[in-house]
């Protein structure tokens, strides 16, 4: 039987060690699973907000108490977050890497699409469809209004608070 070179054993040990340590790190990391989330000084919704967190942000878990996690952000800010706003797997979000790659391959007139995104009005593709399908102006206006419909994040927050929902649970 041929003997394995010494460096093969060394490389193997490094790979196993890295694997073990990264899995430990992953087990202690959570990600923000909400459009926005507040990091608070204590574990109640009445405590002072120490940071506003963004969707997908990685947080290191320091402690768990009831529905709250004590965490540390990448910038080193420590605080408490409502556990239901976190997930242990990294969320992929609206466009994952593959979708972005697919878009870059397609010969879409990207600037026109981008210009219409978020702006009031049907986009050109839908307008073309509406013309072909004979959709009435009244129904076009309805979808137009729906697209433009906005509610401020603060209003949603107040609604949760009033209903004793989310981190405002009694």
């Amino acid at each position, binding site marked *: 039987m041929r003997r394995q070179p010494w460096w093969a054993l060394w490389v193997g040990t490094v790979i196993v060690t890295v694997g073990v340590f990264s899995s430990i790190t992953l087990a202690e990391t959570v990600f923000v*699973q*909400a*459009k*926005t989330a507040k990091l608070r000084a204590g574990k109640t919704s009445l405590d002072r907000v120490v940071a506003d967190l963004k*969707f997908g942000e990685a947080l290191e878990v320091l402690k768990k108490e009831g529905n709250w996690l004590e965490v540390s952000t990448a910038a080193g800010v420590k605080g408490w977050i409502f556990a*239901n*706003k976190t*997930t242990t797997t990294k*969320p992929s*979000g*609206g*466009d994952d890497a*593959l*979708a*972005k*790659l*697919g*878009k*870059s*391959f*397609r*010969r*879409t*007139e*990207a600037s*026109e*699409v981008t210009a219409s*995104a978020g702006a009031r009005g*049907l*986009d*050109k*593709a*839908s307008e*073309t*469809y*509406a*013309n*072909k*399908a004979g*959709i*009435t102006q*009244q*129904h*076009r206006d*309805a*979808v137009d*209004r*729906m*697209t433009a*419909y906005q*509610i401020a994040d603060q*209003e*949603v927050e107040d*609604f*949760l608070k009033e*209903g*004793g*929902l*989310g981190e405002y*649970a009694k």
Partner: protein
Amino acid sequence: MRNKIVGTIAVVALSVALGGCAEMQRAAEGAARQSGDERLARAIHGGGTLISGLLPIGYEEESSIGQAIALQVVARYGGVSDQSDLTKYVNLVGRAVASTCDRPDIPYRFAILNHESINAFAAPAGYIFVTRGLLKQVRNEAELAAVLGHEIAHVSQKHILEVIQRSKRLAGVTEAGLAYAHQNPEAFKGLIDAAVKKLLDEGLDQEKEIEADQLGDVFAARVGYDPTAYVGLLNRLKTLKGDDRAFFKTHPNFSTRIEAVQKVMQSEGLKPTGVMLGDRFTKLSKG
């Protein structure tokens, strides 16, 4: 000749395999065209087109598709209610549930359809509809949250987009966004009409409906709504007869759905919270 074929394959493979490959593919295509080798340029272009057809649909393209499907839903279900207070209330409940769903980073919009059938629909990119008929069956905010959660799950799990992706592959279409609608409006219409038929007439696959039931209840429970509320609503809908149940012919039977929701409550450890918010629903749903 053999060398040329090998070269073509190598360039195509290289151009699509490396990092930043779309740019590289364009550069390779341009270089081939400049050198007068149109065949090679076309082969490189074809390689990229083939790959793009297999890659998932991005949000901008999803948005065009969602808006076009929304137009058909509105047209076929009597238009959208103009009761602004009621619309705002449904949007607040929907936004609360969507805020902690598995895809909270896209806009979700909710509208009420002027239709008496008991129905709810979701189009890609967060266009969600409930009928006036369905709202009449709902007794509290927790039930409404679960219904909206079900539709949000269809969007977050990209169930309708999967249907479109399959149709695109079958039709050999590489994109269904603005450029495609512009170049080939008839084919774009065909793609949307097929998705609308699946959504409104045939129904999505049964396992997708079960997944939406389970995830919808989880999403609503994450916000704090009582997870047993949805079981209550499904039990009540189960007793309906005749035309009122027409829509549900496209869904799995109620016993299967109730069982699936109870199963997820157990596996996810969802406990009754008692948060039904019946009074707020009664007050605000009167619009």
